[in-house]
């Protein structure tokens, strides 16, 4: 009887493998308030030491009350946003309404996990207004683990920004004056200023962060624009004032 061997045909010559991923730098950040949510990202796209462009958005409007920030491998990020938007459109056609935020969050987890063995190399942060009118932030890892939080930074300057946010949003390592307590939610004006400061700081110390920052601000139904009025050049993206309202605020960052 002959031997059944697999030697020859199974021994492939070792080849240099094509690497389907790259890193495109940048940082994203989101903070939830009591009745608003702020989602931001810088606009620089880079590869290695080269700046590819000074304006490539990382933050995208999904619905009037949901905004998604993506960071990591830009090609995966853009494709992922495209597919999420497509699923949300199908939902709209099927149910004649926008998908609720928590459902978008679960959808994103399912879509990310579906690619468990060839992941989207992307960190996602979803911000918006929940059905109960509260501001919410959901953050994800590339394969879909997620949680709802009050604030989250991701991307190349995560390690610079997150501890600053721990201190300024969660008041970590700060003891309130006797008989008082720290606020659970900060006012909008304060939050927007913290976000801009975070990006200015990250730009100063991280080479992949800079050029510009884009802030999306979502206000809960019926909430006035108080807190936004002190900022110049705030652009409204929603056509009418009833329902949730969405605004963008753009600021230049250093370009070096």
């Amino acid at each position, binding site marked *: *009887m*002959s*031997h*059944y061997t*697999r030697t020859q*045909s*199974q021994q*492939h010559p070792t*080849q*240099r*493998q*094509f690497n*389907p*991923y*790259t890193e*495109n730098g940048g940082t994203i950040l989101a903070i939830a308030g009591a009745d608003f949510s702020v989602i931001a990202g810088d606009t620089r*796209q880079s*590869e290695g030491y*080269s700046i*590819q*462009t*000074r*304006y*490539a958005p990382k933050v995208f409007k999904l619905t009037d009350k949901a905004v998604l920030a993506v960071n990591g*491998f*830009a*090609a995966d990020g*853009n*494709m992922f946003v495209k597919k999420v938007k497509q699923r949300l459109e199908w939902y709209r056609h099927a149910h004649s309404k926008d998908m609720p935020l928590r459902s978008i969050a679960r959808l994103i987890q399912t879509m990310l996990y579906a690619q468990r063995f*060839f992941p989207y190399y992307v960190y996602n942060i979803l911000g918006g207004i929940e059905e109960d009118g509260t501001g919410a932030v959901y953050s994800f890892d590339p394969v879909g683990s997620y949680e709802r939080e009050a604030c989250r930074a991701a991307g190349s300057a995560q390690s610079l920004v997150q501890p600053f946010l721990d201190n300024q949003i969660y008041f970590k390592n700060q003891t309130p004056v006797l008989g008082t307590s720290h606020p659970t939610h900060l006012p909008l004006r304060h939050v927007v200023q913290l976000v801009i400061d975070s990006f200015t700081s990250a730009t100063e110390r991280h080479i992949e962060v800079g050029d510009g920052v884009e802030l999306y601000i979502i206000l809960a139904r019926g909430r006035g624009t108080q807190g936004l009025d002190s900022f110049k050049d705030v652009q409204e993206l929603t056509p009418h004032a009833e329902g949730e309202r969405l605004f963008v605020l753009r600021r230049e960052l250093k370009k070096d």
Partner: protein
Amino acid sequence: MDHFPTNWGKPRDEAVDVYSTYPLHSRPRNQVDTFAEGVQHTQQPIVTGTSVLAIKYKDGVMMAADTLASYGSLARFKDISRLHPVGDYTVIGAGGDMSDFQHIQGILDDLIVEEFNEADGNALGPSEIFEVMSQVMYARRSKFNPLWNSLLIGGFKDGKSFLAYVDLLGTTYQSPSIATGYGAYIAIPLLRKVVDGREKDVTEEQARHILEECMKVLYYRDARSLNKYQIAKITKDGIEITDGLSSKTEWAFAESIRGYGAQNQ
């Protein structure tokens, strides 16, 4: 007679099933696809083109690339056009593997014919061509079978300039000035200084001049370049691609540098 119909037409593995008695459900399958190794994916570029440069200016978009297709360090084909018109509004410029680029030209030419046959009064503009190309490139990288190119897609339609980049990973971006390959390191600083923030003011003469200047610098410094290049111009008047141009170069200085010019000292 083999009584198991699912086996018909398939070779029997005599090492495992000498007398053809294997029951149907556990019939040994051919473990390896005999032709699997015959299917090759592009793992590295073979015949390559170097940098492509492009800028936006007052009247539209201008793009430049030399006409060399190298085989490693050999200057193999010296009259290959790396700027390809697609429809009436778009030019696509390619660096990287030239056979993959010619495959892309085929895809795009077919696409234009298909769209023309619709006869619906719509024509594909640069942004549509870009969208198609970004999806094609991303789909191929996701199949671990990339088209090994860096592409610039420039065009002018409905009064709007368009300029974008796509590469073998599906990475995309838009910018007033873009360069691929060594151009990204050597030409981009020169182009950004002239173009970025002034794309509405740069005249055709200025645009042509800075591109010629960059092509000259690249010819001096990029060992895989050629002093024969084309410039494409896409404006409201359509596409114009020049024949092979060349820059006036100066090599007299080389004589005075030991190890660079002739060895006579």
